[in-house]
């Protein structure tokens, strides 16, 4: 995305930390200080890093629960046996890749200056949990929701949960060994408007314990 105020493109969300360490006269930093969108992103990232407790956050109590989750995740974590390949920049610093990277940057710059100015940045391509993949949800003619997901190694059952627009749970299935489920909105916990956006997730279970959760999926009822 480009702005009207400077020739620099807007900052990618994952690059935001590096921008703060640039000198004040760097063109990217100047752009970030002038562009409302980038300025907002920087402020948002700074708030994340500062982590100042806000009223009602109950941080002291929650810390114990988060630490317990971290300990449990750590215990489950199985690091790979061999070293993970070199960081990208270690490879790029070799002469031939460095030259190739330079050419790619030039080509990207030419492309960037010739494209339409605005692209939505509302949804970034941040990776989600992908060991449990949701298929696109379907609405049957009778209004029921048809949900399907991939099987996952180690899981012996699955549970589906649906959440309303306020992220409150409106439906929880019984545990099932199947990898699909049809849900009639009549079974929702609360009477809801006929058309609304729902979020759904699948929980993979092993001997009754949740071992993985899918990324959230979206579906609009009618």
């Amino acid at each position: 995305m480009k702005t009207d105020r400077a020739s620099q493109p807007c900052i990618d969300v994952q690059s935001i930390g590096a921008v703060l360490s640039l000198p004040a006269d760097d063109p990217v930093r100047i752009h970030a200080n002038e562009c409302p969108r980038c300025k907002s992103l920087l402020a948002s990232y700074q708030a994340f890093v500062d982590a100042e407790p806000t009223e009602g956050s109950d941080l002291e109590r929650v810390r114990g629960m988060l630490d317990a989750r971290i300990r449990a995740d750590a215990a489950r974590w199985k690091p790979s046996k061999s070293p993970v390949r070199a960081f990208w920049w270690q490879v790029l610093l070799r002469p031939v890749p460095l030259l190739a990277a330079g050419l790619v940057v030039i080509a990207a710059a030419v492309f960037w200056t010739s494209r339409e100015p605005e692209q939505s940045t509302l949804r970034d391509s941040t990776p989600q949990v992908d060991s449990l993949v949701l298929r696109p949800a379907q609405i049957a003619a009778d209004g029921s929701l048809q949900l399907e997901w991939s099987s996952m190694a180690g899981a012996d059952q699955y549970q589906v949960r649906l959440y309303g627009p306020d992220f409150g749970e409106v439906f929880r299935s019984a545990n099932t060994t199947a990898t699909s489920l049809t849900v009639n909105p009549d079974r929702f916990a609360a009477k809801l408007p006929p058309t609304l956006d729902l979020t759904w997730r699948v929980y993979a279970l092993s001997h009754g314990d949740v071992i993985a959760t899918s990324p959230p999926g979206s579906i609009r009822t009618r």
Partner: protein
Amino acid sequence: MSASSNRWDKTVPDEELLRVVRSGGEAERRRAAATELVSRYRDSVYLWCFRYTGDVERALDLSQDVLTSVWERIETFEGRAKFSSWLYAVTRNRCIDAGRHVSYLLDEDAVAAAPDRAPLPDAVLYEEQDEQWLLQTIRTELEPDEQQAIWLRCVERMGIDDVTRIMKLENASGARTVLQRARKKLRGALERRKEAG
């Protein structure tokens, strides 16, 4: 770090911890490095989720999801960005996916006053169908302070109090007035576009 206890000093940079995590060395040492790294951002992740949801339990659920997903990907994080930036992006996206839509066009009070079953106003339907036009219009029609307020509120989904604080607004109504002004301009632009066919 004390090699015998597998505990890491708080002063060890994130990059060094990541190097150990990816090193292929002793599992317990790597586990300890990863634990230190994730723990460092525990508060950031939770408080960010709380800022979005305003609800302790939902924020706890979301932040636990984020932390668990970090464990699943920590070895494959390549260091293109700072770890904090990457984690921020993961947290932000998770919150945006889970959060409520905040209208670009309708004032907060109007949305709050609408009954649950009220039909969607035309403006909101339009907003859903042509977000690209809206984002472009935000840049061309609004003053910088209005743009920033809209970005912080509608894209970053910050609460009005947070927007007021970040923008250092000192008037009594804080960001509310700036947002109302911005939305009025956007609705005006939408009307003009409709009239022009």
